[in-house]
């Protein structure tokens, strides 16, 4: 019975204090289809998902599943109503077995007793559906790859007999080839008349998997329709509420002479014997699959990961491999893990901005807090961070603004070689464009940027040269004009 709505959301409103996160959102999911939920960060997608999964309660409006009203008070209600949620960050107990994870939340068969044997067929069937037929139910989840764990999450939804599955950026931590696998599983689930809501920042991905789309902006529906009827530009302009002429703004810059040299740099297990020469005023992209050693490479260059051989030199002078020395030599680093490593979430914006170069504000060891605040606020203005006050905790900012603070820090540090690991991860289209613009401007002032990304279109658009990594080695470095997406993938997979 394809086409029959199984989940209906009507005029849902939700406010947090004075901010209205949702102002009357409608949504309709039909059996056997994938609905893409699209919107910038802060558009209300996550809030809506949280209401659907029972983590938050709506202030007004109603939800209907089948023909019954749906008012989840928590995860167990969700499960009973046949709704399953798959989060961006995996939600599995890593020390437990596959089977125990799949049955987690299961009421057991009477008296709370868990008879694993009786549940086995159900477990096996679910595993087979997600293409993990060969995986032993007693294997430990933590020992499986990220991709397998993602599939286990989906299997868990199947064991719970979910009819509606909510997927929140399920591909953000998946390597390319596993994305294809995930999509084929999603197609199988469609056949089984399961309705899905799919959230992703990647339009091309959405286009591949979704049947229909709904766009949210500022907590309201701004558009919906069939996927094949809308082109990218239409959807993007719906998302940002204005015409976006150029998703990848570039600033003209001319790379200068080589000055940073990475020679035979090796760490355990990755990277392996890396040689790069970086030029002044250049944006150097590093492409490759997740797990190819890209992160390890730039962490080792920065001195965060231990190097077992090789050297990094600036202007012909080798730099000792400690973070302090590398920072002194002009290196700056942006972590892909913004939440845990990139920023100290509880500390103020000022503290985060200035932490790597506090020495500038001291006279005889005493900090001049006023001067520090002034400098920080100037910088915040320059990178256009939206915040209430500069002494606000970083955790209160949105993802995109947090990323701007992280970038502002290495600007404050006056770094000349900016090592950026996925700097546009989890930020919205508008902010991404601002970041590209900023990178171009920085390169134009003679700074060297190393840009690691899994998102090929952005690399191809903003970089001067791109190197592709595979199994810890830098396979091929070419000028960007000599690369195509297919070429990059071919080198990355081989």
């Amino acid at each position: 019975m394809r086409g029959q709505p199984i989940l209906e959301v009507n005029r849902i409103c939700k406010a947090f204090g004075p901010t209205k996160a949702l102002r009357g959102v409608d949504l309709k999911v039909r059996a056997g289809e994938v609905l893409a939920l699209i919107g910038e960060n802060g558009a209300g997608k996550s809030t809506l998902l949280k209401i659907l999964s029972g983590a938050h309660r709506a202030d007004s409006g109603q939800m209907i599943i089948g023909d019954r009203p749906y008012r989840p008070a928590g995860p167990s209600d969700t499960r009973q109503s046949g709704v399953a949620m798959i989060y961006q960050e995996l939600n599995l107990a890593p020390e437990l077995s596959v089977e125990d994870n799949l049955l987690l939340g299961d009421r057991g068969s009477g008296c709370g007793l868990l008879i694993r044997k009786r549940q086995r067929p159900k477990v096996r069937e679910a595993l087979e559906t997600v293409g993990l037929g060969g995986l032993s139910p007693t294997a430990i989840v933590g020992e499986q790859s990220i991709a397998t764990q993602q599939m286990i999450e989906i299997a868990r939804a199947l064991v719970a007999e979910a009819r509606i599955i909510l997927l929140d950026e399920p591909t953000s931590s998946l390597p390319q080839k596993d994305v294809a696998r995930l999509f084929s599983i999603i197609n199988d689930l469609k056949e089984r008349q399961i309705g899905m809501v799919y959230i992703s920042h990647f339009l091309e991905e959405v286009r591949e998997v979704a049947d229909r789309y709904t766009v949210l902006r500022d907590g309201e529906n701004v558009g919906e329709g069939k996927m094949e009827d809308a082109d990218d530009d239409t959807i993007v302009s719906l998302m940002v509420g204005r015409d976006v002429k150029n998703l990848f703004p570039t600033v003209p810059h001319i790379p200068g002479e080589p000055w940073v040299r990475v020679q035979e740099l090796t760490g355990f297990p990755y990277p392996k014997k890396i040689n790069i020469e970086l030029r002044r005023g250049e944006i150097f992209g590093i492409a490759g699959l997740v797990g190819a050693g890209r992160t390890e490479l730039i962490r080792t260059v920065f001195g965060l990961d231990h190097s077992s051989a090789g050297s990094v030199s600036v202007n012909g002078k080798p730099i000792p491999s400690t973070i302090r020395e590398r920072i002194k030599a002009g290196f700056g680093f942006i972590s892909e893990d913004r939440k845990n490593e990139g920023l100290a979430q509880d500390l103020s914006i000022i503290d985060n901005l200035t932490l790597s170069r506090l020495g500038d504000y001291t006279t005889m060891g005493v900090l001049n807090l006023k001067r520090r605040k002034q400098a920080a606020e100037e910088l915040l203005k320059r990178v256009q961070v939206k915040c209430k006050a500069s002494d606000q905790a970083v955790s209160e900012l949105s993802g995109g603004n947090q990323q701007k603070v992280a970038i502002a820090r290495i600007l404050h540090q006056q770094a000349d070689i900016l090592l950026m690991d996925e700097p546009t991860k989890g930020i919205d289209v508008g902010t991404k464009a601002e970041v590209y613009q900023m990178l171009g401007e920085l390169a134009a002032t003679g700074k060297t940027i190393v840009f690691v990304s899994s998102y090929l279109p952005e690399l191809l658009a903003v970089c001067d040269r791109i190197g592709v990594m595979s199994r810890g080695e830098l396979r091929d470095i070419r000028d960007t004009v000599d690369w195509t997406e297919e070429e990059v993938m071919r080198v990355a997979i081989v």
Partner: protein
Amino acid sequence: MNFRRILKAIFQSQLGPIFALAFILMLFAVADQRWSSGNYLSPRNFRVMMNSAALIAVPALGMTMIIIAAGIDLSAGTALTLCGTVLATQFKYAAVAAGEPGFAWVVIQAVCLTLLTGCLCGLVNGGLISLTKVVPFIVTLGTMTIFLGVGQIISKESTVYADEKNIPEWLSDFCYTGSNSERYLNFGIFPNVPNSVLLTLILAFAVVLLLRYTVFGRNVFAIGSSESTARLCGVNVPFTIIAVYTLAGVFVALGGLMYYANVKNGNPSDGMGKELEIIAAVVLGGGSLSGGRGSILGTLMGALIITAIRSGCAQLSILNTYTHIIIGGIIIVAVIVDQLRHGSPEWFFRLLPAKTAEN
């Protein structure tokens, strides 16, 4: 003015522990007037309370830094009495008696040795924590009994008493709380403030400046909030951690000195359980055991709250057993309130009287 808004402002301000202390003092003062001698807020009892609070507060200053850096020091109690015992043995076996030439040298030696002992205890803790990466809880759980054992070796498993004559005058007056005003330093506007309290205030002020106005201080907060971020920003994490514990060791040693001045003997096993009082003071003052948060003013208030309750219960002749239960309860309530403060959940404010609705 809007009653609810004022309540909210008080509740969310950094002054929470001060209000809590004022409330507790008021409560006991009233109860004391009604059912007991009415001596609770007398100058003498006030001095006694301040002095006992100082004994907790000085080591708690170091503990505050440790807790801000997301650490913990369970060995503070036994390290404190170890330092006190070292001081006691120095006076007991001193070659020269007080007043004789050369005694000053004995005193200098004794105090330096005490401070050095504290430093060393802290250095051992900090060194083990940053080199082995074992969690501070476990490391200091181990050193807690080690320091106890070392203290017992030094004291030959008994209490060390030094001849009264051999204790320098300034030290025996250090924790004096009686009414003879000649035994106080007496400068400033408040007469008869115990010297222990003066020292505490000076040290507290120094630590406030250290935490707020130095790179070291900001690094301590950064490490406590996110160690990996601090590392990424080029902060020398192992050095900072070792420095924090060593500095805390100095405060523990000063605490040991005051402990000796207070009881005039050194007994290593006295320290068992003191660390919990010290940690409680920090937590009552708003320190978060997950790091990144804590205040010196809060810690001072925390120490005062503990002593105010203890003294109040004593005045009212409440049994010691009940005092323990009351203090335990207050610690838990304080932490719950603190969590509410930081979460500032709307539902909590809805519980407050809302007669004058916000507009």
